[in-house]
């Protein structure tokens, strides 16, 4: 029987029970939320079970929701089971004060730079990453610029006068 999103979800719920905190299907894309400390269990299960075979890490990124106290930063994984053509999105919420989550580099070689990019922009510290350092920004940057508290432009700049830009 061909794998579907429903079967994937049922298998996950059967195996992990309450660790599947929530699930939804926005725009037909199966999305689950799990506790951050279970990420390697869940992703490893999805990858290694023969009938699931989510062997392709499509994307890994983060999102910052400062109004969610204690769970401000979301790390989002997009996995794809190429043999079954089923996709799944996994979300973990971690606190901005201690943004730590296990690295997926042991499961997917391609997670290396995706995690470096996420660290570079959101400061998420991926535990067990072989080379977690900045990748696109300059090494001496002190902030994690995609966090919402940092404005698009440096507010101390004096060479741009808002009046000339209709702002």
């Amino acid at each position, binding site marked *: 029987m061909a794998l579907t999103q429903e079967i994937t979800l049922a298998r996950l719920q059967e195996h992990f029970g309450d660790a599947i905190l929530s699930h939804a299907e926005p725009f037909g894309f199966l999305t689950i939320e799990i506790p951050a400390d279970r990420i390697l269990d869940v992703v490893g299960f999805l990858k290694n079970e023969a009938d699931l075979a989510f*062997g392709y890490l499509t*994307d890994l990124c983060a*999102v910052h929701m400062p109004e969610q106290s204690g769970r401000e930063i979301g790390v989002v994984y997009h996995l794809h089971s190429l043999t079954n053509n089923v996709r799944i999105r996994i979300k973990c919420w971690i606190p901005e004060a201690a943004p730590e989550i296990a690295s997926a580099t042991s499961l997917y*070689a*391609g997670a290396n730079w995706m995690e470096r*990019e996420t660290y570079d922009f959101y400061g998420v510290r991926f535990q067990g990453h072989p080379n977690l350092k900045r990748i696109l920004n300059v090494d001496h940057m002190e902030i994690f610029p995609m966090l919402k508290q940092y404005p698009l432009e440096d507010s101390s700049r004096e060479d741009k006068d808002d009046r000339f830009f209709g702002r």
Partner: protein
Amino acid sequence: MAEQSIFGEEHIETENKQYNTLNLGPTHPATHGVFQNILQMDGEIIMSSEATIGYIHRAFEKLAEHRPFYQVTPITDRLNYCSSPINNIGWHMTVEKLLGVQTPKKVDYMRIVVMELSRIADHIVCNTVIGVDTGALTGFTYMFQERERIYDIFEQMCGARLTTNIGRIGGFERDFSAKTIQLIREFIAGFPKRFDEFEGMLLRNRIFMDRIINVGPISGERALEYSFSGPNLRAAGVDYDVRVMNPYCSYNDFDFTIPIGTNGDTYDRFCVRQAEIRESLKIIETALNNMPEGNFVADCPEFYLPAKKDVYTSMEALIWHFKIVMGEVDLPKGEVYHSVEGGNGELGFYLISDGGRTPYRLHFRRPCFIYYQAYPEMIKGSMLSDAILTMSSMNVIAGELDA
């Protein structure tokens, strides 16, 4: 530890052997872009390397959080600038998915024509540059004339050539004009002959084959672990193509094959792109011949700029024009992932909207960024000149790499 070398840190000791450090880039004429690789060399053999990227990082994801959706389109132009229309249309389709807009068949077919033309332009750049790096400049100059023809078509459609900003949410600004269709027809009539000449010069050329076979190979398993996509993955023998796997834009109406390679080396990447160009031509011709009747835009007046003549004469149109240009139309809430088969592979847009006028979060899944991390592994143990070839055959585009 040996005593301090007179060359200082230039010499690094590993396993009782001294390697030379070579800085390839960031601005090296042979790397076709801003790439830095710090190589540890044993003579002319690369022992290890580290890639430094980010030289043209422009904070697109941060910028996108401050721009209404129409102002995001020019940002996508500058990702993979060799095939901007695919990025533009991919973004427009992402927004349409969020809005729930159904595009008419005609729009889908027009988009396919545009996207396949840009795929050809993209692959032309990559394959001719492989020729240049092996010492065959002629093919490059001849095929770039063909690329100019494609850009003439884009210019006829939207007024721009490289960074096209083509199309609208819901479809296109205007229908293909008679002149556009004539240019496309001329292109698909004339291109195969010149393309055959180019292919005849290289494909079975003994010197060319000896030069690039087994250069920079990667196995299918390894490529999948590295989340490769596009021609580079298919050259390694995995037939993953978003157009077939998750058909968007009525691609399932078309009959085309996915060319795959076996070794994942430079020659296979070259061959896969050559074959894909032929498939794209076939798709364009079919799409033109079967172009459905209908409107060139979906019915979504809140998101589609009204015609100029209406803006000047009707109050309603003028209001919409202002609202759309100033970005005062809110997007619905939701999160959506949409991917298209770009020139380099799966180009994904992960959009989170909180119901405001700009994306709350927009992440670009950039195929270049993801597969370039395998580069050190692919060039390990090879010659310096092979590293250059591997890079050009992977089609690493700095704009997409650094976003």
